[in-house]
């Protein structure tokens, strides 16, 4: 009985985190971007600095008419947002927040699981792009696919480097094995992982799939209302997941000064800082061109990640 | 001569033509260029075949005539141990005469072609093929391994095919294809029979097989023997040829060049009957006993059929071709040979072997003569030749006519000439067949065969009358002037004539060789 309760509690916690954290990131983005660009951002909704802006957005989305274009592939079109969103929920459950089982559910091959499930998310965009029966959507969908392919590989290789260093695929195991000097050791891997993750999320400067000046809004052009909201939610959930994973893999997760009991705080803090960096990058960098993006992945990130693996291997064997 | 020398002689006899065939394709060496390359290569052919003939004569001289039943000059080397195939050569009283006959006929052909090259592509290939043919034929008579026998048997086909297809007369390609398809089909079936024997008995060695089976058929069950003998017999019968498997022969002869016809009739057909004597009789004696009456029946049908066909062709107005006629007569003659073999008695088999040689000599001569006629008249069509009254060869070219008459008479089996003994002995054998064969049936066969000799005489006389006699000049059809026999023709034909007479007057020279060997093969009865 205790077990069942335990599981239910964990589930609820994950669900809550899944619904709250992306909103927090979203709100932060509004405000941070505004201040960086010398403006205020949302100020009215909810009174204090527009804290309820995203809630208001949500209400608006829920009330909007749901339009499926006449030419579209109806079923696929409707399912696509769910496919884009759900993988992040699944990933969230295996990310360790603190020591001693402070995790939704630990899985042996957690790293493998995470990488595999994250790859599914892009299917949502592809489905959306295809089912819309719109040239721009199709282009956007294809760009998404190509982008995923280009960046999945360095991401996987960088993750492999961490797995080598830790000698395990379990996420808690990796954090457990973490030493402070891993961060400089794996810094290239961290950079690659984070960059590739950004690209997979189609965040600027890697947002060609939704480049409004070229292809309107890519795969999501035809979407409105709740379904559109889901895509947005997926993006912000993705930011959370990416930052949390980078924290866990490269920044030592719950490790930090003082007692282990506040480990969860360190994890959240590191994640938050990374999320801020994500927002910062959006404001700072211009959008790459599609071919630059591909070239960057294949000629810079992948060779780098191979080198990182070599470095990890050599160091690991030497220190033995 | 001791056996080692004989051994090398035999190997040389088989290999020399093969090497010569390769040599014919090379450019002539400086000293032997002759007037032109064509002449040089033809001379090369004459030289090689002459050397082979000399070697065979030496072989015959060195042969221990006291023990013709014993395998002499034998060479036995392992070739493919995996399959138990050995290079086993050797000769006894049965194969020696055939060896000599082959060498002689090929030499004569080479000599004849030196002066009278058949029309066709370059003589280079012609000589090479001729030598290849000789090598194959000699090997067939000299090998003592079933697989090698098959190889040699097959090796003959290809040069013969090309000789017909490239140097032959009208319709040559069709005839050549027909020839090769028939005989190939036969030999493939024969191969299966040989394989069956080899696999069941565990050896392909003919001597061992013959010895073993005479000791109460230790290795081969009766069923195996029946199947194997049927398969082998079929292949050999096509080659022989036996009625009703003869239909390739007339076409092949009609289309073949003179030299081809001579060799085909004089040598190639003998391979079939030789196979019967060498393989079927000793190795599968039980099956031979079972099949002998059927073989005899087909043989006598062949005799009658061949003669009737010849009669039909010889008749005026039938458009018969002389070469075709002689081809059909071969079917009849080979019928006698088969009848002799089917009697399973030493007398009959000896007769068959004798008839083999005789037929080789006589029919070879006949084909030479007809070839000469064709060269002179431009056709071998009997009606065209004879016109209304006859070709009057006696008057226009008396020596040629005389020789033709001689050959025809020899062919019909006049006593005192070679043709007589073989056929008579074969009929004697059939008259009193081996124990266990149905006497009554054989008596009938003998009677029919005897009737066949009458028919043979009839058509040959008709031919002689139509070709040799007649008015010399007719007012309405002035005839071309004919050259009589040339020197080279004499050179080519005289040996045949001489041997025909010799074998007719002194058959013992041949029978003395074959008889002991035959008795050994037949298991000493």
């Amino acid at each position, binding site marked *: 009985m205790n077990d069942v309760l335990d599981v239910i509690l964990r589930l609820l916690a994950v669900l809550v985190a899944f619904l709250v954290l992306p909103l927090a990131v979203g709100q932060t983005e509004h405000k941070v971007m505004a201040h960086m660009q010398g403006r205020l951002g949302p100020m009215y909704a909810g009174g204090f600095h527009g804290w309820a802006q995203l809630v208001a957005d949500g209400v608006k989305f829920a009330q909007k008419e749901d339009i499926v274009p006449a030419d579209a592939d109806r079923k696929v079109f409707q399912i696509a947002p769910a496919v884009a*969103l759900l993988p992040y929920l699944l990933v969230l459950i295996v990310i360790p927040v603190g020591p001693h089982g402070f995790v939704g559910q630990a899985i042996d091959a957690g790293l493998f699981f995470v990488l595999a499930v994250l790859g599914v998310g892009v299917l949502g965009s592809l489905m959306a792009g295809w089912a819309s029966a719109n040239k721009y959507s199709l282009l956007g969908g294809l760009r998404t696919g190509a982008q995923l*392919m280009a960046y999945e590989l360095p991401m996987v290789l960088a993750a492999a480097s961490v*797995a*080598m260093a830790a*000698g*395990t*695929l379990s996420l808690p195991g990796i954090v457990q094995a973490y030493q402070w000097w891993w961060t400089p050791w794996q810094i290239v891997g961290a950079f690659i992982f984070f960059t590739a993750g950004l690209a997979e999320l189609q965040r600027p400067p890697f947002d060609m799939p939704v480049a409004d000046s070229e292809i309107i809004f890519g795969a999501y052009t035809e979407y409105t209302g709740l379904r559109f909201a889901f895509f947005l939610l997926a993006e912000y959930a993705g930011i959370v997941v990416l930052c949390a994973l980078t924290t866990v893999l490269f920044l030592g997760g719950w490790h930090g000064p003082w007692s282990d009991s506040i480990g969860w705080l360190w994890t959240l803090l590191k994640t938050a800082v990374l999320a801020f960096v994500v927002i910062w990058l959006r404001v700072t960098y211009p959008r790459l061109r599609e071919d630059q993006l591909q*070239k960057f992945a294949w000629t810079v990130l992948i060779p780098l990640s191979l080198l990182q693996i070599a470095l990890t291997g050599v160091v690991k*064997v030497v220190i033995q | 001569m001791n056996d080692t020398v004989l051994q090398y002689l035999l190997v040389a006899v088989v290999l020399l033509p093969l090497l010569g065939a390769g040599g014919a394709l090379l450019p002539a060496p400086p000293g032997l260029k002759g007037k032109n390359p064509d002449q040089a290569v033809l001379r090369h052919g004459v030289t090689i075949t002459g050397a082979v003939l000399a070697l065979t004569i030496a072989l015959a001289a060195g042969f221990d005539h006291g023990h013709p039943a014993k395998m002499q000059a034998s060479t036995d080397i392992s070739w493919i141990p995996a399959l138990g195939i050995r290079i086993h050569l050797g000769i006894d009283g049965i194969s020696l005469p055939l060896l000599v006959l082959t060498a002689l006929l090929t030499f004569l052909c080479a000599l004849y072609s030196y002066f009278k090259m058949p029309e066709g592509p370059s003589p280079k290939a012609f000589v090479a093929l001729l030598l290849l043919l000789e090598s194959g034929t000699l090997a067939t008579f000299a090998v003592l391994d079933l697989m090698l026998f098959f190889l040699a048997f097959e090796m003959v086909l290809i040069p013969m095919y090309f000789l017909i297809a490239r140097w032959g007369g009208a319709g040559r390609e069709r005839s050549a294809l027909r020839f090769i398809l028939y005989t190939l089909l036969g030999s493939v079936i024969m191969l299966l029979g040989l394989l069956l024997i080899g696999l069941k008995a565990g050896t392909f060695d003919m001597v061992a097989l013959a010895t073993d089976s005479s000791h109460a058929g230790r290795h081969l069950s009766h069923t195996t023997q029946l199947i194997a003998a049927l398969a082998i017999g079929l292949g050999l019968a096509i080659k022989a040829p036996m009625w009703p498997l003869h239909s390739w022969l007339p076409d092949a002869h009609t289309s073949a060049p003179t030299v081809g016809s001579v060799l085909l009739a004089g040598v190639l057909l003998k391979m079939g009957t030789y196979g019967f004597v060498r393989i079927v009789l000793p190795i599968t004696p039980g099956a031979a006993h079972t099949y002998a009456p059927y073989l005899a029946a087909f043989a006598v049908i062949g005799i009658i059929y061949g003669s009737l066909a010849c009669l039909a062709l010889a008749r005026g107005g039938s458009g018969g071709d002389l070469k075709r006629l002689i081809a059909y007569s071969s079917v009849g003659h080979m019928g006698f040979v088969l009848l002799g073999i089917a009697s399973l008695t030493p007398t009959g088999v000896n007769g068959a072997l004798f008839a083999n040689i005789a037929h080789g000599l006589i029919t070879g001569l006949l084909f030479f003569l007809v070839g000469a006629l064709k060269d002179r008249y431009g056709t071998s069509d009997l009606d065209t030749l004879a016109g209304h009254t006859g070709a009057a060869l006696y008057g226009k070219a008396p020596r040629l006519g005389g020789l033709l008459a001689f050959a025809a008479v020899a062919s019909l089996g006049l006593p005192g000439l070679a043709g007589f003994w073989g056929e008579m002995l074969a009929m004697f054998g059939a008259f009193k067949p081996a124990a266990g064969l149905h006497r009554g049936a054989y008596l009938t066969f003998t009677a029919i065969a005897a009737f066949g000799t009458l028919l043979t005489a009839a058509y040959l006389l008709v031919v002689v009358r139509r070709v040799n006699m007649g008015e010399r000049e007719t007012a309405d059809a002035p005839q071309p002037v004919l050259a009589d026999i040339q020197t080279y023709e004499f050179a080519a034909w005289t040996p045949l004539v001489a041997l025909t007479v010799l074998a007719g007057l002194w058959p013992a020279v041949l029978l003395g060789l074959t008889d002991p060997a035959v008795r050994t093969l037949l298991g000493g009865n």
Partner: protein
Amino acid sequence: MDYFHGYSVVGLVAVVGVLFVAVAFGAGRLLRPVVPTPEKLLTYECGVDPVGEGWAHTQIRYYVYSFLYVVFAVDSIFLFPWATVFAAKGYGGATLVEMFVFLGFLAVGLLYAWKKGVLEWT
């Protein structure tokens, strides 16, 4: 048993997620208006009437990338089992060299694609 337990929880989360989406869509259906007009249902092409079919054949360029990806990603699955054990006792340097050879294959593949101009667009 832990093995299946872990994944059954994951399965449960998936079910919860699906439920969540279903409920959200269901609620949305109740809350939103439904007033379709032909204009609304038209494919959006910057305000003008759409030209031709939406599923137009596009440049096949991305195909090569997907190709590259499939090859590399699948190769890299060999990396993970190896990564967890290569530093264990008894493996050491030789195993490392083996993996470098393997990485060398990947690198050659990449070099090939690069030199063949797959990564250039113009």
